[in-house]
């Protein structure tokens, strides 16, 4: 719907904000007939720099890996082609991991997109709804004959991510300023992301653990999840994995599939 007469200013003002090829909009001016170019550029700069800063705040490990100049050049392209659609900046950059994977200058860092996905999941876990994690005692109270039918309710902050690369190790090594040891990037790693009352935790899952966690977090019963995990990894340890997920705070509740 076109704006009413007298309200077209935003439609004229906005398009050049993120497009350096466009000239300064006609409708603005400096005082006493002075030029508006450098003045309009203040807004262009505010918009572009603040959105690049927003991506840098969401993806600090990616920035540490690439270096600031590389990161900001990559982020600038992304900001111009994919500006945020929500005023909540912590929601921004969901498509940045895909953008990184397609970015021509990042092709020799094939794991960088997965590191970015971990950082995005970290922030989602950070802002997720509060909920009290499942107490391990709840599982101990279930009789063995009902274990296979158990269904778990995932915690709003819990997420599971799989990577063909050592994304978890690379992520963990780059989230602070500590020196980095040599990492073999080619080892596939899966991550479990959870949050208690305060801190987000990222754990590496053992073989089969991601299949198991994914099934349980999708509401599949324990028996089915364990069978799928064993198929994925014959050494899969059901007891250790379910204890690990509960201890990490991946669930809030459990119930028996049987409605009785």
């Amino acid at each position, binding site marked *: 719907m076109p704006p009413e007469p007298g309200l077209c200013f935003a*439609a004229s003002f906005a398009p050049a904000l993120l497009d350096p090829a466009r000239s300064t909009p006609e409708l*603005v001016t400096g*005082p006493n007939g002075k030029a*508006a170019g450098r*003045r309009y550029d203040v807004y262009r700069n505010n918009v572009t720099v603040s959105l690049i800063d927003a991506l840098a705040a969401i993806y600090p490990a990616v920035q540490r890996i690439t270096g600031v100049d590389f990161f900001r050049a990559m982020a600038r392209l992304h900001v111009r082609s994919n*500006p945020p659609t929500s005023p909540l900046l912590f929601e921004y950059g969901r498509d940045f991991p895909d953008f990184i994977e397609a970015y021509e200058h990042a092709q020799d860092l094939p794991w960088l997109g997965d590191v970015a996905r971990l950082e995005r999941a970290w922030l989602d876990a950070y802002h997720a709804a509060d909920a009290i994690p499942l107490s391990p005692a709840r599982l101990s109270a279930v009789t063995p004959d009902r274990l296979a039918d158990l269904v778990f309710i995932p915690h*709003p902050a819990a997420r599971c991510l799989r990577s063909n690369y050592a994304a978890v190790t690379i992520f963990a090594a780059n989230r602070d300023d500590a020196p980095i040891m040599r990492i073999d990037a080619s080892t596939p790693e899966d991550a479990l992301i959870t949050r208690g009352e305060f801190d987000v935790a990222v754990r590496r899952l053992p073989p089969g653990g991601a299949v198991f966690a994914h099934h349980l977090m999708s509401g599949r019963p324990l028996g089915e999840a364990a069978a799928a995990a064993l198929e994925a990894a014959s050494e899969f340890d059901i007891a250790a994995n379910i204890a690990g997920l509960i201890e990490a705070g991946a669930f809030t509740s459990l*119930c028996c599939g049987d409605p009785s």
Partner: protein
Amino acid sequence: MSTIKPAPPAALPLRFATPIGGVAGTSFKPEHLPAILEAKNRRGFFEVHAENYMGAGGPPHRALEAIRRDHPLSLHGVCMSIGGPRPLDKAHLARFRGLVARYQPALVSEHLAWSTHETSFFNDLLPLPYTAATLTCVCDHIDQVQEAIRRPLLLENPSTYLAFRESSMRETEFIRAVAERTGCGLLLDVNNVFVSAANHGYSALDYLADFPLSRVEEIHLAGHAEQADNEGDLLLIDSHDGPVADAVWKLYEIVIRRRGPVPTLIEWDSKIPDWPVLQAEAAAAQAILDRHQSAVPAGERHAA
């Protein structure tokens, strides 16, 4: 079957009893939380950008609850796009209303600016022309916000770098008309006055003389940076990245002398200093407020 049990919206024990009166406050930055909680000095209020607390849960809400327990809170929206031609974002308005209900802030404010157009959010406070058409639109938006939050909103004067050819009103005239039509209060950003006056070549004192001071319920002070325009003349940038300039302090004292002590906020949003530095800026504002605590607003004062 058990269901997910979200933490109940905290019924916060409010330890302070009185409104924030002539008190100085600062922007709340999470990195200062430990120092703030350790401090014995409980005077002062904190202002937060509403959007940073619009997530469902997690540490931001723990921090805000901790701050809110002992201090008055000012909720400052930056993304409502009140000055834009588009209808307000209903979902955003609902989130804003939810925060007001949850944290019961002493002050609630937004900007005379816009930040969203079509589907893009520009994350900046963009300017608008001052015309009869934009006046109607802004008033309509403020009516909607005030209806949603069930209390008056404080509207902040912008800092601007350029003007619109189509503008037919002065900014002060526009703001006065908005306040009269909607009944909203005003947040006077003295640094914005100084920045805009320099950028547009008018007198900050003239602007303040024309500003409806009796409606001002909060004041902002912040640092600015210097650049140049096309002609090489000084262009001031509202950067919030340093201490308040001496000239802005002087303007501030003039305002307080005329208006009486109103809650005053030191804004510092980037290159954030250690807590004592920010606290010292607030103490400087508090000293000025204290000097005028007994002052009566100018309109009610008898000639000496």
